[in-house]
């Protein structure tokens, strides 16, 4: 109890601090210089209709690379930690699935996967992108695993997809250094016609790899967690 009071006091202090951080926040009535540049010059420099995508994939491409890396790291650590050493003798008590779930998943899983792909391919045009698409793909996997708990997911496939897409991302970045103005420069491909699918230079390409990679990584994590479930 005493501890909780202490925690409360500390949190009050923290609240005061946060309040003071944003004490100068007046809201924005117009874009600041940086955002303005993105909004005004972005379409022409990067060619992406989705400005967030422009920022994520190109202007702040290094962040995105880092982000992918973080997921990659998480996936690697999860798979390391949850690696099943003795697969022969293990027993699992699996939850039974319902008919409805089973049937629905058969329909929904392919649709979900397809939707995921759609989302990351259109990342530069509409809301969404590689991460979102990847997450949707992984959620398809979740659905599948919910309906068929005993299903073994091919880790090898996941790894290969992961590695190839990751490597490609890096190679694209390096290609930017060599053939264009810098790491991850998307003008390596022509910007194309603004607002179409084949536009925004490398962005769709990168987003495809990101999407595949994220999808693979999240799937890997989920698969690993699932395999460990209810292990006796």
């Amino acid at each position: 109890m005493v501890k909780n009071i202490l925690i409360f006091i500390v949190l009050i202090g923290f609240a005061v601090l946060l309040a003071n951080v944003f004490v100068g926040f007046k809201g924005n009535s117009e874009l600041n210089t940086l955002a303005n540049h993105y909004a005004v010059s972005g379409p022409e420099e990067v060619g992406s209709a989705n400005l967030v995508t422009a920022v994520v994939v190109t202007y702040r491409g290094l962040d995105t690379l880092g982000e992918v890396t973080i997921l990659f790291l998480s996936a690697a650590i999860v798979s390391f930690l949850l690696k099943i050493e003795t697969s022969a003798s293990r027993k699992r008590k699996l939850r039974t699935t319902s008919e409805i779930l089973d049937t629905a998943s058969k329909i929904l899983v392919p649709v979900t996967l397809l939707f995921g792909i759609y989302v990351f391919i259109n990342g530069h045009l509409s809301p969404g992108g590689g991460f979102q698409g990847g997450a949707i793909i992984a959620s398809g996997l979740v659905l599948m695993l919910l309906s068929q708990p005993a299903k073994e997911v091919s880790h090898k496939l996941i790894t290969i997809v992961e590695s190839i897409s990751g490597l490609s991302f890096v190679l694209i970045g390096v290609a930017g250094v060599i053939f264009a103005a810098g790491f991850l420069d998307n003008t390596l491909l022509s910007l194309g016609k603004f607002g179409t699918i084949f536009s925004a230079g490398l962005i769709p390409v990168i987003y495809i790899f990101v999407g595949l990679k994220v999808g693979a990584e999240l799937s890997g994590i989920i698969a690993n967690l699932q395999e460990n479930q209810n292990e006796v």
Partner: protein
Amino acid sequence: MVGPIYIIAVALGTAFSLGFFKKANVKFSFAFMLLAMTFMTFISGQWLYAFLTQQQETIQIFTAGFKPPFSISLQMGFYEAVFLSIINIVGLLSAIYMYDKLKEKGVQMMMVFVLLFMGLNVVVMTRDIFNLFVFLEIASIATAGLIILDKSANAISAGFKYIIATAIISGILLIGIIAVYYYAESLYINDIINSNLSFIKGGAVAVFLILIAIVLELKPFPANGWALDVYEAAHPGIGTIVSAASASAVIFVLTKILPIVGESGYYIIGIIGIITFLGSNLLGLKQNTTNRLLGYSSIGQIGLLLTIIGLTPYLGDKTLFIAFGVLISHALAKAGLFWLSGIINSKNIKGWAAIRRNPHLLVLMGTFIFALVGFPPFPSFFAKWELIMQLANNDKIIWLALILIGSFIEGVYLFRWFGYAIKGENQDLPEFKIQWNKIIPVIIFALGLYAIGYYYSTLTGSAASLNYIPLLFILFLYAIDFLPVYIKNTISIAGIGYYLYTIYPGLEEFNLIFALIFLAGGILTLLAGYTYKGKRQGFYPLVMMMFAGLLGLIEANTTLEFFFAWEIMTIGSYFLIIRGKKSMTHALSYMLFSVGGAYLILAGFGLAHIGQSSYSLDILANVQGYAPIIFTLLAVGFMTKTASIGLHIWLPGAHAEAESDVSPMVSAILLKAGVFGLIVLMLRMGAQSFGSFDIYYALAWIGAITAIMGNMMAAFQEDAKRLLAYSSVGFLGYALFGLALMSHLGWLAAVSLSVIHFMFKTLLFLAIGGVVMRVKTKEMYKMGGLIKKMPFTFISVLMGIIVISGVPPLTGFGGKWILYNAVLDKGWFLPAGAIFFAGIIAFLYCFRLIHTIFLGQLKDEHREVKEAPFWMLLPQYIILGVIMIFSAFPNSLLKPIGEVIMPYFSDGALEWQGQLAVSNFGYWNGELIMYIVGGIFVIVFAWLWFMNRNAQKVKQFNIGYSAERPSLPETTHFAYNFFAPYKKALGFLVSPIISDFWEAVSEGIHAIADKIRRIYDGNAQTYVLHIIAFIVIFYLIAFGGSYGI
């Protein structure tokens, strides 16, 4: 040149491609990873080289083809190159070190490993604050992954705590970043700096959040429980990475964002730093778990670094030199120690006794420990020196004191640990085997420390004249350590002799006197070394190190050289002392008093340097303020070596437990270093007082009390070498008293007593050492009647004690006579009375020494005892000859000393008429007294011989005993508790108040440490609470109500 961006590309590429090899050959994967690490190291090294040699300009790397602030940019400048090189080298060597572990655990961990270093690299290079956040997260997550390398329950729960804590910290960083983005309208660090957020309402707090988050990444005390658990639970290789590489990177980040914060940031950083430094080291005191201890030490060192960064406004352009010196020493040494810990594989520091199975490992460990504590020749030494000088120059006395206190505490536990390693007794020591991949990184870092230390010394302008020749000689001796004793002994003697020969013409005044004591004394004591057989591994480099230090004192012209030499001497003597039997605790207390004393000296030199441009020792003569404090600091510092009362408790054990020929070195020679220091000090600073309180009068009393207590303790000892050790304490009390008189005669007495003490103490320690060697015990009551077995030794001891007791006609009397005259001159009668009282007490132990060992009844088990070896006797008889010359012709000793003192103190000098010395009060003719006493003695002896030439010789046991015969020699030898009645009367004076006092201090501090460390209750929630509370508290400190709600 290969662009820095390729570091990222290569690391990521490697990590991603490692997935292909998952099931394939792990060795191949490792080679692949190692190649990547090598390439990263190569890139950073290449840039560093370019910056060092080719005046390379700092470059910016723009990504995505746009300039900042629109895109993320990286920067590669000199400092980036330095830090990247450190980080990548640590990484490369860590990879090599962890070869078998990584191989065993598979490719995933190799990916994590590479990515960790990529993260750290980008963190250093990036100029975008959000990018910084992302890559810090990469590093954190990768670290969390490596923590669970072992998959043990403890490691996983430590990893969990680590994730929670770092996640909260990065959340806070993120809040700060987004707020900064709002206020500064940019994420580019240079833009943010230009927007001067500190002056914007809210902006300052936002910046504070970023700052505090980065600081929290450095694990400040007390919000660092999570990190400590990690250090304890994780593989030692991970400890290395976290402590050396990650910390370096984050420190660099801190310097990168500090300009955003502006001036006020330094203040906060400084306070956090010093709290961390003190707190962490304090808690380290109670640690027995190796890796956790290293963790505390790491955090402490980072705290010191933070302090230094926080003090930037005062340190000015020296900051970099200081900070880098501390950082590189910390990084290399801590990495080395963590690695060693992985080799030794002992969870408890007591188990490190195993390391001495391999002396070379011990050398490595010693290198790291000494580098951490800041001993020469390591960079940390020069850094600490410069730090103290600058702090003093800016009048930051409190900071100076706190830093020294913290360093001292760190020394306590590090040396305790080292003591366990060298001497700890432990029944079942863990076995360990040394693999090439584990030892090579350690060796590289140890060598690196020496190399960088040398480089650092060349950077210090005033240290350019440091004399490295003796150190090279030491290295040479280490290299030929496999040779037998007699060769090494001869080489050592020749080395000292040759050096003395070369410097002799340049020596004058006190330097000459002390050079002779140190070096001629060294040769004499080394002669006894011929007694030893075999290899005597490790002995000669250490001896030479001590002598190199002593020599350095003589040759020093600047305060830095002096301090350098002082520390070298301390290292050498520490090892010599710890070589003895049961010497662990004594060596520790020796080291602690030495380190403490050294810090006082350092502080004194620092204060003396205020307002001075030169580092010459002569600045002491011309200090700008604080004079009495400087004097006191230095005097107390030197008095730790002369073992004055209160600071003496290390001495008896240390001297008594040392080897037979080491005891004279440390007792007869080493203690004179303190006297030399006092002389150097007093000559330059002259009279000092606090208001009307004369410091010298206090010194005189300290000398007098030291003399009484030392002598009385000596009288009550049962252990012969301890008796001699306490006798040294007492004798140096006389010397201190004499110096404090600040008159011609006082100094004459002090200096001549120093010379004489050197001679008879060498004589006695060698003689007693010879006895102990033969009878295998130091307890005097277990000996007795050895006069007939060891007559030559007996004569040595006899002459030695006559000299000590100051009975005419031998030369000891001269000292007493001069002291008397000096006292009458000065008028300090009460302390003088005490000094003479002490002189009389000396009789008690003198007699006891000779009686209980050589006279009385011979024990049955000693019937076959032989005379001491020739090589032990030879130096004794050389000294005896000199003593006889000085006794008969006192002016051969006193006149030159008098002439040396003359320029400084001319009043009351002795007037010499042949051998007749005339003072203001009396006169003394040593030669004549010798003849008269000799004459009377011969006549009386002739008379007795004439009357009793036929005396019948009987055995000692043949005595009349109340008309009966005694039954056993054991019960007939009156020796145990010889001065029982005296002890009954005055024993209360020597009750161990002083050791009790120090013990109480130590216990108290340990108890406090134990209490405080309970805050680390192992619960992740508590740790998070610490973090939040830490932020809130420092928020209040920083903004102190300037913003209310």
